[in-house]
């Protein structure tokens, strides 16, 4: 059991800066997900922690020890690779026992731990087989079993589920989450799949271009994204962003969008008058009204996608294209007109130039940018 701390980590490959001055603290027992698109540096950061890459600047501390210059084998970590990296020339038993044998554990201990890990991953009947004789999903289990058998201080996972097909991925997600909760090991998990990140982590570190953009609980990342990148990356569908500005005609501020305007009775919002803004709102926070009315925005329906549990509408209002989520019985015709009400409590404001969120005076709601 150990905590992990990254101080000012920098890693470059030639002219490319993969990790740009990253600080991160992971408490003992914490499950942190590094989330981001390809090339954002999340895998590189993980590999720096593993010792598979040497950092160009900064320090890595594991359990209080400075591990920056230690080779992987001295860092008391275990890792699950995206390709599983299960040794093809060894039986499953020997694969799982590999780390223990390196630690020169006695045979009885090895036997016991391998059985324990195998049972946890439901592969205890396959131990005598070779990796080529089992399925990809089972190989993934072997990789996890191998990592947990060593009882390392920190568990590192590099997109362990991305090579599984969609159904298997969903099942393994839940299984893995339960398993890791049971073990309680400090875990750092890399993924580009935001659904995975939201479902599994205690905290999510959203990364972009080598930096941590937001470090927060899944709910906070979803509801209070630190900038338009996070809002657009997290959530299915991505957050809607509309160019907006605030005008003050009288007491109540008016939100002006390209497709219409509506009043928003919030003095904090009034402070944003005169600035160029981006209004962010989630698809499910937009309510469809059948008829025009006060404070509603008119929109034209372009596409209706029935998804079973709800319908996803693509609508056009002014210059903007929005995604709106409606209950399954609401099925407007394409090209018909509908009216939208944006739930005031779910509206987020971002600066038009930087894309960063503008925190309004609700301390409980303020995001914590990385």
């Amino acid at each position: 059991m150990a905590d992990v701390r990254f101080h000012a980590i920098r890693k470059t490959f030639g002219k490319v800066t993969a990790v740009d001055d990253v600080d991160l603290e992971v408490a003992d027992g914490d499950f942190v997900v590094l989330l981001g698109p390809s090339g954002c540096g999340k895998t590189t950061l993980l590999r720096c922690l593993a010792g598979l890459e040497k950092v160009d600047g900064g320090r890595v501390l594991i359990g209080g020890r400075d591990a920056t210059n230690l080779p992987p084998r001295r860092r008391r970590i275990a890792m699950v690779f995206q390709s599983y990296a299960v040794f093809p020339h060894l039986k499953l038993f020997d694969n799982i026992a590999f780390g223990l044998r390196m630690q020169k554990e006695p045979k009885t201990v090895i036997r016991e731990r391998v059985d324990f890990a195998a049972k946890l991953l439901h592969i205890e009947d396959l131990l005598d087989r070779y990796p080529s004789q089992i399925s990809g999903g089972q190989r993934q289990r072997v990789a996890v079993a191998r990592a947990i058998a060593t009882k390392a201080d920190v568990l590192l996972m590099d997109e362990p589920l991305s090579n599984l097909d969609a159904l298997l991925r969903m099942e393994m997600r839940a299984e893995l989450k339960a398993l890791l909760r049971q073990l309680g090991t400090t875990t750092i998990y890399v993924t580009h799949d935001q659904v995975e990140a939201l479902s599994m982590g205690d905290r999510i570190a959203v990364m972009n271009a080598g930096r941590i953009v937001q470090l927060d609980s899944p709910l906070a990342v979803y509801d209070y994204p630190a900038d338009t990148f996070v809002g657009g990356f997290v959530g299915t569908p991505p957050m809607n962003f509309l160019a907006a500005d605030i005008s003050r005609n009288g007491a109540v501020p008016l939100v002006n969008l390209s497709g219409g305007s509506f009043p928003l009775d919030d003095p904090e919002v009034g402070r944003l008058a005169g600035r160029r803004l981006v209004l962010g709102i989630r698809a499910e926070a937009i309510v469809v009204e059948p008829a025009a009315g006060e404070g509603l925005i008119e929109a034209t329906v372009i596409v209706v996608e029935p998804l079973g549990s709800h319908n996803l509408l693509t609508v056009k209002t002014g210059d903007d294209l929005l995604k709106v989520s409606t209950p399954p019985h609401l099925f407007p015709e394409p090209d018909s007109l509908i009216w939208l009400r944006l739930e005031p409590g779910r509206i987020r404001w971002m600066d038009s130039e930087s894309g960063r969120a503008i925190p309004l005076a609700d301390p409980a709601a303020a995001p914590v940018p990385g």
Partner: protein
Amino acid sequence: MNPPRSAVAGLGRVFVYGSAALLSLFILIPIYLMTLAAFSSNEDTYAYPKELLPRGLSTETMRFFINFGGVLDALQRSVIVAVITLVLALVIGTPAGYALARFAFRGGDTLRLSVVGTRAFPIVILSIPLAVIFIRWGVDDTVLGVSIAHTALALPFVVLTTASVFAGVSPELEEAAMTLGCSRATAFVKVALPLALPGLAASAIFVFIVSWNEVFAASLLTLRHRTLPAEVLALLEGAPPNFRFAGGFFLMAPSVIVILLIRRYLFSMWGRVLK
């Protein structure tokens, strides 16, 4: 316009299988005939017309060849040279191949290019100065001398094929081993090496055969201690037919057998997979 598909397809298939069969016969018949000739009696080797079917096989011709003065020793020397070459080339070349496969380092591309470039230099231009140099050093006409020359020829091949073999072993496997407690060297021995072994073995065998076959350098670098090909070449003028038949068979047979045995690994060696 075009004839109906089935007719064309039928004709095409006959043509295809026919060509394949013809080509196969072209390859196989000489091998068969050589074997036949080598295993005919002394008398039959002079006979005309020759027997085209295996009747009256005998080991007379082979025995004649082997007992011919100098052949047995030459055979022994060929084996020794091939083994030394194999060991030297592999021991020296495998680390370089590994380095090329695993590390992106300055000079890596230059090395690869130079190694490939050595193939452009004919063995002819290498052997002559080597002959002169070896005389100066006192290793001319020795097994060691020939081995040195053969290793110089085989080394580029070994470097390139081991590089390709190791490139086919995912580096993540060694990385996984390193996270499980191995140093780089241990990870190499316990993970990379076992997985690379079939490819390495295939290249080792190929080096053996190349050394076994090599005749130009061997003839230039030896006089009284010749390897088999050099010996056969030297005795060729005025040699009786049974000598030629048996000699040809002896030089040909190991190559063919080896290729048949390692053919699947040949392709893994060259980085492609084929049935």
